[in-house]
């Protein structure tokens, strides 16, 4: 069968790619578009390393077919920094040493950004529940939680 022609928007840029039905959005981002910031962890929706937004909604890109991206607007980690200027979440992750090996980090950043866009002043409990689908085996989570709450404070201009 012919490949699907997918026309979508990634981080505001119109892009097109070809994919097979069974290729996931994660596969397409990494292998067709070269956007390797989105990481593959479990491939079964448990770890959150592949988190992206689709039309503003946080999802695991391993649980979305590439062909489903047609006509949608995708947000990935590559859209977070503005050129050389890091997003406040990215800066706070560095300041708080909220990462070690780094594989989970793009997913945590994309997920945290999605939370703060809806909920600029989350409680720690809200934040921990929101991030329950992002697994990190290095940090023990506390540094991540502190980094996100600190970034939220800064982003509110507090």
């Amino acid at each position, binding site marked *: 069968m012919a490949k699907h022609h997918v026309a979508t928007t990634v981080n505001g840029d119109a892009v097109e790619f070809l994919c097979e039905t069974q290729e996931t959005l994660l596969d397409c981002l990494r292998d067709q578009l070269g956007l390797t910031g989105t990481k593959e962890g479990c491939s079964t*929706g*448990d770890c959150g390393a592949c988190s992206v937004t689709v039309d503003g909604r946080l*999802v695991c890109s*391993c*649980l*979305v*077919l590439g062909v*489903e991206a047609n006509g949608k607007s995708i947000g990935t980690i590559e859209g977070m920094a503005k050129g050389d200027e890091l997003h406040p979440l990215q800066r706070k992750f560095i300041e708080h040493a909220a990462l070690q090996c780094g594989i989970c980090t793009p997913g945590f950043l994309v997920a945290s950004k999605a939370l703060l866009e809806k909920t600029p002043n989350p409680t720690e409990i809200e934040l921990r529940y*929101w991030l*329950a689908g992002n697994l990190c085996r290095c940090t023990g989570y506390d540094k991540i939680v502190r980094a996100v709450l600190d970034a939220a404070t800064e982003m509110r201009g507090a």
Partner: protein
Amino acid sequence: MRYEAPSSLDQAVALLAKESGDARILAGGTDLLVQMRTDILDPVLIIDIKGIAETRQIKEEAGGFRVGAAVTGAELKEHAKLKSVWPGVVEAANLIGSTQVQGRATMGGNLCNGSPAADSVPALIAAGAKATIVGPKGRRDVPVEDVMLAPRKLCLTKGEIIASFLLPPKPARTGDAYLRFIPRTEMDIAVVGCGVCLTLDAGGKCTAARVSLGAVAARPLLVAPAAAALVGTSVDDAALQKLDAAARAACQPIDDKRGTKEYRIKVAGVLARRTALIALERARKA
């Protein structure tokens, strides 16, 4: 593997009916893609139903709500009116998976995946919801408790799709609730799930009840004796003890890594009591 995204139920039904190989419906994909990835399924055709209006809408209908089979958990949570009328149903759907999974997972998929531990199903059963099934012979409404027959087995015949759920009008002084037991606080599959919906009269006596249990039998159960333990009472301690016993008596669980038979039976009784108390509190305020 072919992919089709029809814009009408008629087209979807026609595609499904004429396919001789394994065809699968794609709603949120949070079960389907995992099963494809782990080689449990290798369909020849995927029919994405998200382009069909009825599957994606929440509408007030006949005094209740029609909820599309492909409405996501996140969308249910954001629907303030549905959440205020049927909080148990929305909370049950919201227990499924992570934030990311909630962005995709649907009640239609949760039911059609055919797991006895599906969180939204006992809540839908307790609420008295019907599944609207569309197929080559037209539409039919089936009580949710009659849809799943056994693990991975549904009452759907060739070409049939669940398009939406119909939640009935909620009588005055009625409350619903769903609780599940898992050994942690998030991201797990129910050891036991329990949905309760009950109605009180002006004097606080229970006039109607529905109790449903998940993960304690080959399919989610509507437990009439458990409901009977509440009706005619003020849902006092004696009634709750009878509810506990009736819930335990209905269980036919398996032993697995999540719990032994004995454990599941014990938990089912405790969970039924706790769920009934939340439903009672809500009924008093409704």
